[in-house]
């Protein structure tokens, strides 16, 4: 069984591919399928024939480690960040639950700004090239990471995707994370800013139901505001909950399909890039 995801598949690690390309699994991820290479013979068995006290004469030794469990991801994220800084690439990590409109916001933004800014996109999904194909249709360089059963992107996947994407200096890289409001919050990818997207159809208290994601984000885009007349949602409540989690959040209220509110988002993007 695959350790990372508990899946029974043979897929080894995430697959990184460009639209129109044959998909190769890459092996650089943490999917160690521990096979023959080191078969541990746990021969530490005691057969006690007499009824003496069960006393081991082994000496227990303690090795102090004091290491952060996510240190590996953080180190690779720092390496990504250094690469981005050297090339003056502004990187956004887009996170949200599935269906809140990450790809739609991305598509609209790229279509409206691609003549003035050079964009690159990394798409993260468990399966399919669908999102990458949507971006590719806009003639924006894109690489798709399929995480298989994995629920979030990690910094080594982004590192490997970058080799394929080869972004130019002074550009903006958009990383669309796997749609999931829980797991991606713990994994720094090396981004400049984290952008959490919530839509008006999702329920006002999402920010306190899934606080870690809002706590670690810098920007909160509230999408689908064109649906406000039809749904039971008060934007001020969303903001109140979100600010309770993270008082430093900056908000944008948009409708990606209608284009409402996108100008403020573009202004921020251009000013911060």
């Amino acid at each position, binding site marked *: *069984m695959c*350790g*990372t*995801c*508990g899946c029974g598949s043979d897929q080894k690690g995430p697959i990184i591919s460009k639209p129109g390309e044959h998909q190769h699994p890459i092996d650089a991820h*943490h999917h*160690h399928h*521990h096979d023959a290479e080191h*078969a*541990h013979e*746990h021969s*530490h068995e005691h057969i006690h024939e007499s009824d003496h006290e069960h006393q*081991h004469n*082994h*000496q*227990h*030794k*303690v*090795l*102090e*480690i*004091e*290491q*952060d*469990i*996510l*240190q*590996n*991801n953080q180190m690779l994220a720092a390496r990504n960040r250094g690469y981005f800084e050297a090339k003056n690439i502004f990187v956004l990590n887009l996170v949200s639950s599935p269906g809140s409109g990450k790809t739609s916001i991305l598509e609209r933004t790229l279509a409206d700004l691609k003549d003035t800014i050079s964009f690159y996109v990394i798409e993260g999904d468990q399966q399919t090239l669908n999102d990458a194909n949507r971006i590719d249709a806009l003639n924006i360089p894109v690489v798709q990471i399929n995480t298989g059963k*994995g*629920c*979030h992107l*990690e910094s080594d996947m982004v590192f490997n995707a970058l080799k394929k994407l080869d972004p130019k200096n002074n550009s903006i890289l958009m990383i669309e994370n796997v749609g999931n409001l*829980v*797991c991606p*919050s*713990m*994994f720094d990818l090396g981004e400049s800013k984290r952008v959490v997207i919530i839509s008006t159809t999702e329920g006002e208290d999402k*920010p*306190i139901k899934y*606080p*870690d994601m809002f*706590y670690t984000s810098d920007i909160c885009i509230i999408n689908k505001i064109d649906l406000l007349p039809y749904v039971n949602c008060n934007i001020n409540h969303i903001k109140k*909950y979100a*600010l*309770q*989690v993270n*008082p430093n959040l900056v908000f944008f209220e948009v409708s990606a399909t209608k284009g409402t509110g996108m100008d403020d988002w573009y202004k921020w993007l251009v000013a911060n890039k």
Partner: protein
Amino acid sequence: MHELSVALGIVKIAEKAVENIHFERITKIELQIGTLSGIELDSLNFVWDSAVKDTVLEKSIKQIEVVKAKGKCVDCDTAFDMEHIYDSCPKCHSNFKGILKGKELRVKAIEFI
């Protein structure tokens, strides 16, 4: 289910730590996990066995020290116990706070024979 990634991270750290030492068996691994670390202990326990299978930790005891979260209000300096990451200051109700403890996610030590 990022707990599985975390469990595998723990295995990786343990494997690296014992790379250059002579040992027969790792008997215990000590972890420190904060209540605001984003880890569900139930989920971690659930995935543990499959994560450590065929690794140096397969027969180890897992000992978890749970670190209770504490915050300090940026506005009035009150230190307070936190249950959620969105808890506001009990004294002045400000949402601006620093988290003093509770984000820990660490391997403290291993014990081996």
